[in-house]
């Protein structure tokens, strides 16, 4: 067995960029289909290599780390996937092939393949069939990621040897002088300025930005040294919570990064109320967390990206606890599964307390906006104070759904067909909150009706009906607008209802009825794990609503310089790509000692 170590000029080796490209490739490849609850879905079988995690071969003290397992297998699947074939058959790809930049890159690929004596896809599959890991370390100048080590293990020995033999002459040309290594007998070390080092054996390769890091890695690889990253406390914590076998695993040591920065990593306050509502809690938890971990798992038709942040949300101060539901409970409710649901969004937030604590959570410059908001609300609901009378009536969960719109209020349809929507607001005080929102709904309806009249559109009257013992208020045109290219505003005809402690506002009476059905008899059972936020998209339904507006999209494309045939082909390709996926879901879970963000997708 021969081992060699080379020192390369820094510009020639960019492991971080390489890794990013691989991850981008993987994420770009993955698409979605039907979603499944973590509780009911079997764990994904990872295409793991034969050896254990490379964290045991990387020196301790890393501020960041990423490891890919079985990348070669994924590349093989990517190469053979129908998705890639679909992409390659698109007019856009054919156009790309004609671009000079593409042709230059393709020419370089051919030169490299000729030099290596093998196909690059094949080379990548064979070289990355095992594990590939990268870790970054602080530098003495204070840069927390100034040094790096990359280790590849489990490569096909024949392929690695062939690649090495073909590359070595070029290393010599670049004045990379071989030297002996004391760590692994027989290993040669090449030094050229001492800025980057690479060493390889029959089935492994190691590269580092310093000789010291490389020697430590070689020592760990050969089992002669102790002090691996795998033994760092934060890393062990991450492995214990998230497991060690994933297609991709990444880790950031928040303690070391904070120490290197000299202050907390995330802002104490944010300058956008919506951002605060959605990620204010995550930012706070991450600031005190020892680590942030990330894992990607891929199976035949599904991928899951999971990110974990250590920390108990119940230990946060009062202002930041508003973002988190009780880890012992279900958290936010399930998204109502309306027929042909396009997508939905539901999240937990103690809005009343968030509103009260806004000065602690938000930058001062955004606070005057709240005063303006309160003035506006006061015009709509005279005599009510937002903080005291309105927000406390709202519960801790809000749900939004998008589904095909019902046009029974028209004698025709709008020119641009927007998706219908429904908003379900949980009420802290059912009766009082219901009355207030009903008043709000009627006031807004009256204003919209006036505005509609000013634009010479048909006025509507407010009507009501009883549906399954629930009273629905809705608008109805005095005379149904006629036509198949009606203005945008005719998409919607508002409706509202209260079901127990939930208030519904929807864009049509039919959507309102469907929401009542769902709220009275939810289709998903209880007992699932906690969810603090849930967002799901159903690509098939999304494609349908896009298809309904095909002409508008194609016209936009022509306005941007396409001809009509190309515009049609582009849009058809887009729909085909969307329909390739089955589903996407982004969810967050509050656990007793951690917070988890999960992105799932499935494809056909």
């Amino acid at each position, binding site marked *: 067995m021969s081992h060699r170590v080379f020192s390369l000029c820094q510009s020639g080796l960019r492991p971080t960029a390489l890794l990013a490209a691989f991850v981008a490739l993987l994420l770009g490849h993955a698409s979605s289909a039907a979603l499944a609850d973590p509780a009911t879905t079997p764990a994904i079988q990872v295409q793991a290599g034969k050896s254990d995690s490379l964290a045991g071969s990387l020196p301790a003290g890393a501020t960041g780390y990423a490891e890919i397992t079985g990348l070669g297998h994924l590349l093989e699947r990517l190469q053979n996937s129908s998705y890639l074939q679909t992409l390659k058959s698109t007019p856009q790809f054919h156009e790309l092939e004609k671009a000079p930049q593409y042709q230059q890159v393709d020419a370089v690929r051919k030169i490299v393949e000729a030099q290596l004596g093998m196909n690059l896809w094949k080379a990548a599959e064979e070289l990355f069939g095992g594990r590939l890991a990268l870790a970054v370390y602080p530098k003495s100048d204070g840069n927390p990621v100034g040094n790096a080590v990359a280790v590849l293990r489990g490569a096909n020995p024949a392929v690695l040897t062939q690649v090495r033999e073909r590359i070595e002459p070029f290393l010599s040309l670049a004045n990379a002088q071989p030297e002996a290594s004391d760590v692994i007998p027989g290993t040669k070390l090449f030094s050229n300025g001492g800025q980057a080092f690479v060493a390889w054996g029959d089935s492994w390769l190691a590269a580092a930005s310093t000789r010291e890091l490389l020697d430590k890695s070689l020592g760990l690889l050969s089992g002669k040294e102790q002090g691996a990253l795998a033994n760092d406390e934060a890393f062990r914590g991450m492995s214990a919570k998230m497991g060690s076998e994933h297609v991709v695993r990444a880790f950031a040591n928040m303690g070391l990064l904070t120490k290197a920065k000299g202050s907390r990593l995330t802002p104490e306050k944010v300058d956008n109320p919506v951002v605060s509502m959605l990620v204010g809690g995550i930012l706070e938890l991450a600031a005190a967390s020892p680590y942030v971990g990330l894992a990607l798992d891929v199976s035949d038709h599904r991928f899951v990206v999971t990110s974990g942040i250590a920390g108990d949300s119940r230990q946060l101060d009062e202002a930041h606890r508003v973002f988190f539901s009780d880890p012992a409970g279900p958290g936010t409710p399930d998204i109502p599964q309306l027929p042909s649901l396009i997508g939905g969004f539901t999240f937990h937030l103690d809005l009343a307390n968030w509103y009260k604590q806004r000065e602690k959570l938000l930058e001062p410059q955004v606070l005057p906006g709240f005063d303006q908001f309160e003035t506006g609300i006061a015009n709509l609901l005279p005599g009510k104070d937002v903080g005291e009378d309105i927000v406390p009536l709202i519960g801790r969960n809000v749900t939004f759904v998008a589904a095909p719109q019902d046009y029974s209020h028209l004698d025709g349809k*709008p*020119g*641009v067909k927007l998706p219908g929507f429904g908003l379900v607001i949980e009420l802290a005080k059912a009766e009082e909150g219901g009355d207030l929102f009903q008043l709000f709904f009627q006031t807004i309806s009256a204003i919209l009706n006036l505005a509609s009249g000013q634009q010479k559109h048909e006025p509507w009257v407010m009507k009501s009906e009883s549906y399954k013992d629930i009273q629905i208020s809705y608008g109805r045109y005095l005379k149904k607008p006629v036509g198949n290219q009606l203005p945008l505003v005719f998409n919607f005809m508002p409706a509202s209802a209260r079901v127990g402690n939930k208030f519904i506002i929807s864009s049509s009476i039919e959507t309102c009825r469907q929401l009542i059905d769902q709220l009275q008899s939810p289709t998903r059972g209880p007992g699932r794990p906690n969810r603090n936020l849930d967002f799901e998209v159903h690509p098939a339904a999304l494609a349908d609503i896009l298809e309904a507006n095909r002409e*508008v999209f194609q016209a936009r494309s*022509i*306005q*941007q*310089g396409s001809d*009509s045939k190309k*515009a049609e082909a582009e849009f058809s390709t887009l729909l085909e790509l969307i329909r390739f996926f089955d589903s996407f879901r982004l969810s967050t879970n509050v656990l007793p000692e951690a917070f988890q963000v999960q992105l799932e997708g499935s494809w056909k």
Partner: protein
Amino acid sequence: MSDSQTPAAALRPYDPSARGGLTRRDATHLLWRLQYGATQAEIDQAFTAGLQNTLERRLTPQPESPQFQSADNLLRRTAYDTGNIADLKAWWLYRMLHSANPLVEKLSLFWHNHFATSNAKVQSVPNMAAQNDLIRQHAAGNFRPLLHGMARDVAMLVWLDGNANRKRQPNENFAREVMELFSLDVGNYTERDIKEAARAFSGWQVRDGKFWFNPLQHDSGSKTVFGKSAVLNGDDVVDLCLAQPACPRFLAQKLLRTFVVSAPDAGLIDALAQRIRFHDFAMTPVLRELFGSQLFFSPEARTALIKSPLDLVLGAYRSLDSHPKLSNAIPLLAALGQDVFEPPTVKGWDGGRLWISSASILQRANFATDLVTGNRLGTIADPDQSVSQLPDGTSETIVRHYADLLLNRDLEPDVLSRLAGYMNQSQGAREQRIRGVIQLIMTMPEYQLV
């Protein structure tokens, strides 16, 4: 027109054969006035076909290609679907660039400026589109039905307050403009004529989005307009306007200013007015005579007009075989002062010298830079490919090619030398250097002329 020529003689047919046949300069000049810009292929085709064939082809309705019809329908339906006037603008710009009948589109713009109506008040894509259809239908046809149709056009009635013109409270807006701006010009009518005409148009209203004659609000009494007393209605007033000698003069002056020379003299105006009267307001024969006249091909008429923003932008797109991003061109055209479907006032765009200001000349130069070197406004055809058909690839030949295509004139020797020198000495790939030359040519003062 030479000094020795009478105005009537200036409108006599131009005979290219007397000068050795139609030149490429002649062909380019003709195409630039009949459409927005011209590709090299179009210039070559016109040069080969000759004056009469080229003119007849432009004046005779040509079938549109299936691809054009498909895109045209799509863009128009989208404007109706969205109700957004920007989409209707994009539709019309697409027609101006890609229709097989570009003169019809140019004439449509001429009449849009004549009957200037803005969506800023009308607020209706269907009504603006319907008015545009009416204009297009008669653009190269007869002015009589166009003026009559405009008096009943919904967008016009909204624009000039038709619904406010009632029997006991006549609104004079339309009556005033039909005389001042649509047929006669100032000084050719009296205030009494306007008041009486307003009575004649009373009750011409809009109901449920359509023209509606409201008999209860129409003043059916006797009126006196231009000295004629009778029970006149709106159509009678339109006919009386058309019968005035000032009417063909007004149209002749506008046609000459828009298509031939910036400041036509009275003799020329009278001469063309006679032809308009002779053809009883039928525009095609008038335009055939005008575009085929000695006046049109005289040195005074060549590159004698300042490019309108549409001539500048669409002309560049067409001349350089571009893939335009129309949605980005619309705000640019507005910034340059020509926002179709939204003229600034009821008088439309004054045009001419007013197209150029210290601000707009910079914007015009920036447009050239954006189009030639960027992709925000679209992309031009690959210059390397475009010059591959030239007899040789020398810098002088390439510079001459683009000077012909974009300026329709010979460059001064030192200018030619400096542009060729720029191309020889500048850095970058050949294609980039050619783009640099195109950009420099497009920022020359001569490029602002058509």
